[in-house]
Protein backbone atom coordinates (compact mmCIF):
# COMPACT_ATOMS: atom_id res chain seq x y z
CA UNK A 1 0.00 0.00 0.00
CA UNK A 2 1.42 3.36 -0.93
CA UNK A 3 0.31 6.09 1.45
CA UNK A 4 2.79 8.45 -0.17
CA UNK A 5 0.94 9.26 -3.36
CA UNK A 6 -1.85 11.81 -3.14
CA UNK A 7 -5.31 10.56 -4.10
CA UNK A 8 -5.94 10.81 -7.83
CA UNK A 9 -8.07 13.83 -8.65
CA UNK A 10 -7.93 14.87 -5.00
CA UNK A 11 -11.42 13.55 -4.34
CA UNK A 12 -12.44 12.31 -0.90
CA UNK A 13 -13.65 8.97 -2.24
CA UNK A 14 -10.23 7.37 -2.30
CA UNK A 15 -9.58 8.59 1.20
CA UNK A 16 -12.76 7.03 2.54
CA UNK A 17 -12.10 3.80 0.71
CA UNK A 18 -8.60 3.70 2.06
CA UNK A 19 -9.78 4.37 5.60
CA UNK A 20 -12.39 1.62 5.31
CA UNK A 21 -9.62 -0.74 4.30
CA UNK A 22 -7.39 0.36 7.14
CA UNK A 23 -10.21 -0.02 9.64
CA UNK A 24 -11.26 -3.44 8.45
CA UNK A 25 -7.66 -4.68 8.46
CA UNK A 26 -7.27 -3.50 12.04
CA UNK A 27 -10.57 -5.15 12.96
CA UNK A 28 -9.44 -8.44 11.41
CA UNK A 29 -6.10 -8.32 13.22
CA UNK A 30 -7.95 -7.57 16.45
CA UNK A 31 -10.31 -10.52 16.00
CA UNK A 32 -7.40 -12.83 15.16
CA UNK A 33 -5.58 -11.76 18.30
CA UNK A 34 -8.67 -12.38 20.41
CA UNK A 35 -9.20 -15.81 18.81
CA UNK A 36 -5.64 -16.81 19.43
CA UNK A 37 -5.71 -15.71 23.07
CA UNK A 38 -9.03 -17.42 23.74
CA UNK A 39 -7.89 -20.68 22.15
CA UNK A 40 -4.76 -20.57 24.23
CA UNK A 41 -6.48 -19.76 27.54
CA UNK A 42 -9.48 -22.02 27.07
CA UNK A 43 -7.41 -24.96 25.89
CA UNK A 44 -5.35 -24.66 29.05
CA UNK A 45 -8.43 -24.30 31.18
CA UNK A 46 -10.72 -26.89 29.64
CA UNK A 47 -8.62 -29.56 27.93
CA UNK A 48 -6.33 -30.69 30.72
CA UNK A 49 -6.19 -34.31 29.55
CA UNK A 50 -6.65 -34.39 25.78
CA UNK A 51 -8.57 -37.50 24.70
CA UNK A 52 -9.43 -38.85 21.27
CA UNK A 53 -11.99 -36.07 20.80
CA UNK A 54 -13.37 -33.05 22.63
CA UNK A 55 -16.09 -34.43 24.87
CA UNK A 56 -19.31 -32.72 25.80
CA UNK A 57 -18.11 -31.25 29.05
CA UNK A 58 -15.00 -29.90 27.37
CA UNK A 59 -17.12 -28.26 24.68
CA UNK A 60 -19.31 -26.67 27.32
CA UNK A 61 -16.28 -25.51 29.27
CA UNK A 62 -14.81 -23.95 26.12
CA UNK A 63 -18.02 -22.04 25.37
CA UNK A 64 -18.19 -20.78 28.95
CA UNK A 65 -14.51 -19.90 28.96
CA UNK A 66 -14.88 -17.87 25.75
CA UNK A 67 -17.77 -15.90 27.22
CA UNK A 68 -15.84 -15.17 30.41
CA UNK A 69 -12.71 -14.25 28.44
CA UNK A 70 -14.70 -11.65 26.52
CA UNK A 71 -16.17 -10.38 29.80
CA UNK A 72 -12.65 -10.05 31.17
CA UNK A 73 -11.54 -8.27 27.97
CA UNK A 74 -14.33 -5.74 28.37
CA UNK A 75 -13.55 -5.11 32.04
CA UNK A 76 -9.87 -4.61 31.24
CA UNK A 77 -10.73 -2.31 28.35
CA UNK A 78 -13.01 -0.17 30.53
CA UNK A 79 -10.49 -0.01 33.37
CA UNK A 80 -7.62 0.93 31.08
CA UNK A 81 -9.67 3.56 29.27
CA UNK A 82 -10.79 5.15 32.56
CA UNK A 83 -7.20 5.17 33.78
CA UNK A 84 -5.97 6.83 30.58
CA UNK A 85 -8.56 9.56 30.99
CA UNK A 86 -7.56 10.05 34.61
CA UNK A 87 -3.87 10.29 33.70
CA UNK A 88 -4.65 12.79 30.96
CA UNK A 89 -6.56 14.88 33.48
CA UNK A 90 -3.43 15.11 35.62
CA UNK A 91 -1.40 16.73 32.86
Amino acid at each position, binding site marked *: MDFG*SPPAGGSGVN*RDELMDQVKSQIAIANAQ*ELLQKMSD*KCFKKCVTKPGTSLDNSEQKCIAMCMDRYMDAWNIVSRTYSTRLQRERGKL
Partner: protein
Amino acid sequence: MSNFGGNDEKVDPVLRQMIQEEQVKAQFQAQVHNFTDKCWDTCVADSRLGNKLDYRTEACLQNCVERFLDTTISVTNRFTQLLQRGATGGMH
Protein backbone atom coordinates in the same frame (compact mmCIF):
# COMPACT_ATOMS: atom_id res chain seq x y z
CA MET B 1 5.31 2.90 8.19
CA SER B 2 8.29 4.00 6.11
CA ASN B 3 6.03 5.91 3.76
CA PHE B 4 5.11 8.29 6.56
CA GLY B 5 8.61 9.46 7.13
CA GLY B 6 10.12 10.50 3.83
CA ASN B 7 7.68 12.67 1.90
CA ASP B 8 5.52 14.20 4.59
CA GLU B 9 4.37 17.14 2.52
CA LYS B 10 2.83 14.84 -0.10
CA VAL B 11 0.60 12.97 2.34
CA ASP B 12 -2.92 14.24 2.60
CA PRO B 13 -2.96 15.75 6.12
CA VAL B 14 -6.56 14.72 6.76
CA LEU B 15 -5.74 11.15 5.79
CA ARG B 16 -2.66 11.20 7.95
CA GLN B 17 -4.71 12.42 10.91
CA MET B 18 -7.30 9.70 10.35
CA ILE B 19 -4.68 6.99 10.15
CA GLN B 20 -2.99 8.25 13.30
CA GLU B 21 -6.29 8.04 15.13
CA GLU B 22 -6.73 4.46 13.98
CA GLN B 23 -3.19 3.67 15.09
CA VAL B 24 -3.94 5.02 18.56
CA LYS B 25 -7.07 2.86 18.74
CA ALA B 26 -5.16 -0.20 17.52
CA GLN B 27 -2.44 0.39 20.13
CA PHE B 28 -5.09 0.67 22.83
CA GLN B 29 -6.62 -2.63 21.75
CA ALA B 30 -3.23 -4.31 21.60
CA GLN B 31 -2.63 -3.22 25.19
CA VAL B 32 -6.04 -4.54 26.24
CA HIS B 33 -5.14 -7.93 24.71
CA ASN B 34 -1.86 -7.88 26.57
CA PHE B 35 -3.42 -6.93 29.94
CA THR B 36 -6.30 -9.39 29.56
CA ASP B 37 -3.78 -12.17 28.88
CA LYS B 38 -1.78 -11.37 32.03
CA CYS B 39 -4.70 -10.61 34.30
CA TRP B 40 -6.69 -13.66 33.20
CA ASP B 41 -3.81 -15.81 34.45
CA THR B 42 -3.71 -13.88 37.71
CA CYS B 43 -7.43 -13.59 38.39
CA VAL B 44 -9.40 -16.21 36.46
CA ALA B 45 -7.24 -19.12 35.31
CA ASP B 46 -7.31 -21.02 38.61
CA SER B 47 -10.89 -20.30 39.63
CA ARG B 48 -14.09 -22.05 38.64
CA LEU B 49 -15.91 -20.64 35.61
CA GLY B 50 -19.48 -19.54 36.23
CA ASN B 51 -22.21 -17.92 34.18
CA LYS B 52 -20.63 -14.57 34.87
CA LEU B 53 -17.47 -13.24 36.41
CA ASP B 54 -18.13 -12.78 40.11
CA TYR B 55 -17.59 -9.54 41.92
CA ARG B 56 -14.24 -10.62 43.32
CA THR B 57 -12.84 -11.63 39.97
CA GLU B 58 -14.00 -8.38 38.46
CA ALA B 59 -12.28 -6.40 41.22
CA CYS B 60 -9.15 -8.51 40.77
CA LEU B 61 -9.07 -7.72 37.04
CA GLN B 62 -9.47 -4.01 37.73
CA ASN B 63 -6.73 -4.03 40.36
CA CYS B 64 -4.50 -6.08 38.09
CA VAL B 65 -4.71 -3.49 35.30
CA GLU B 66 -4.26 -0.55 37.66
CA ARG B 67 -1.30 -2.06 39.48
CA PHE B 68 0.35 -3.12 36.25
CA LEU B 69 0.15 0.47 35.05
CA ASP B 70 1.45 1.73 38.41
CA THR B 71 4.35 -0.67 38.06
CA THR B 72 5.10 0.59 34.55
CA ILE B 73 5.10 4.19 35.78
CA SER B 74 7.22 3.29 38.79
CA VAL B 75 9.77 1.39 36.71
CA THR B 76 9.92 4.19 34.16
CA ASN B 77 10.48 6.83 36.83
CA ARG B 78 13.18 4.87 38.59
CA PHE B 79 14.85 3.97 35.33
CA THR B 80 14.90 7.64 34.36
CA GLN B 81 16.49 8.48 37.70
CA LEU B 82 19.10 5.80 37.19
CA LEU B 83 19.90 7.13 33.73
CA GLN B 84 20.20 10.68 35.04
CA ARG B 85 22.45 9.55 37.85
CA GLY B 86 24.43 7.59 35.28
CA ALA B 87 24.77 10.64 33.08
CA THR B 88 26.18 12.75 35.92
CA GLY B 89 28.00 10.22 38.07
CA GLY B 90 28.75 7.22 35.89
CA MET B 91 26.60 4.09 35.90
CA HIS B 92 27.59 0.94 37.73
